[in-house]
């Protein structure tokens, strides 16, 4: 599974064996910050700073759960 920015599609895409998912803006912004180092709280704080907003916790958490279910992300011990 690989995440990269594709200029031709103006989107982040997830690439995996014989498949591709084009991500919308918020999904791309979240996954691009999931680097295996930062915690979920760090990522939410960073997103809220970047987009000059607050109260993203529920939305971001819900997406991360979905991404885990779809194996777009994996949990580190």
């Amino acid at each position, binding site marked *: 599974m*690989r995440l*990269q920015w*594709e*200029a*031709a*599609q103006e989107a982040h*895409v997830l*690439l*995996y*064996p*014989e*498949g*591709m998912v084009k991500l919308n803006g918020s999904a791309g912004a979240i996954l691009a910050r999931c680097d295996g180092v930062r915690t979920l709280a760090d990522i939410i704080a960073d997103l809220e700073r970047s987009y000059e907003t607050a109260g993203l916790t529920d939305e971001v958490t819900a997406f991360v759960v979905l991404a885990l279910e779809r194996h777009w992300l994996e949990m580190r011990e």
Partner: protein
Amino acid sequence: MRPSLPSPSGVGPPLWLLLELTYRCPLHCVFCYNPTEFAATGAELDTADWLRVLTEARALGAVQLGLSGGEPLVRDDLEPIVAEAHRLGYYINLITSGVGMTEERISALKRAGLDHIQLSFQDSTREMNDFLSSTRTFERKAQAAALIRKYDYPMVLNVVLHRLNIDHVAEILAMAERLGAQYVELANTQYYGWAWLNRAQLLPSRAQLERAEAVTRHFRERAGSKMQVYFVVPDYFETRPKACMNGLGNIFLAISPDGTALPCHAARMLPQLEFPNVRSHDVRSIWYDSPAFNHFRGEAWMKEPCRSCPERQRDFGGCRCQAYLLTGDAANADPVCELSPHHHLVTAALAQAESASAAVGAPAAAPLIFRDHRISIAVEPRHNPAPGG
């Protein structure tokens, strides 16, 4: 990466690029979709040509890359092709029989940036695998599987199903489990190329298909999510056609060994189109400007019943190659569709498969034709009437 120029006429980029690096193959599979006339095609592109194709297609936005054939490991420049594709940002899938995979090569491919390997098996036992491919390759495939695991690639197996092996699905899934597969694609034969020649021997009966689906369901319930099994239903058994290639010329670009650019790897057979070659045209002009790639875009080419069908934007009238093979006109509705006036051609083939599988032990109506260079020179490209009578 260089940002791509805006596309003319609302046509999107060729997101999927398939390089058929060679038609040479150590196997002789009866269900191969390569063109039966492969021996008559021109010389293979050289390394520099392939690298140029990669660069030009990537600039248009191509990102999923398949390296296939024939057997791509036959090319001794596979490693530099992979290295350049990786540098350009492709996600690289190698589609291989495993024959020719050595530790030296897989280690070099890994270093070059290969992302994924799809390994084919023909059946679950040495006897059937080797019979169906007309080679002694089962052990070599098992060795390739061990190397794939050792080099930490996801184990992705592909097994093409047909009348002669579809009753072995339980054994095939057990083999996949033993090999540590994460993904298994049970892909029913699509009837193009050599498979089309052998259709009368390969098309399963409905009872066989239903048994195989039940076995697959049962396996999924038992194995859970540790092994994902995709069961690709043969479209002859459907009442609506597949959205083949998501419409010709919409997302998929294949380059044949001799440099012919195709909107589907089987499309070389379509008679009225002159497909451009990457030796004389760049990928941008091929994709956006060539008459062959524009011919089946949109809906202007459609005939009834597709032209006025409310489902035409969902399935694009099905597969142009199948329409051509079965009816002689690529602009007809795919006869798999029950709305097609030619649907009886599909049901007749299914009826023939029913009676053939009922006649257990009876000699086959015609011998299987194994993919072979010598036979490729001898066979005439043909469409209807259906093979095997």
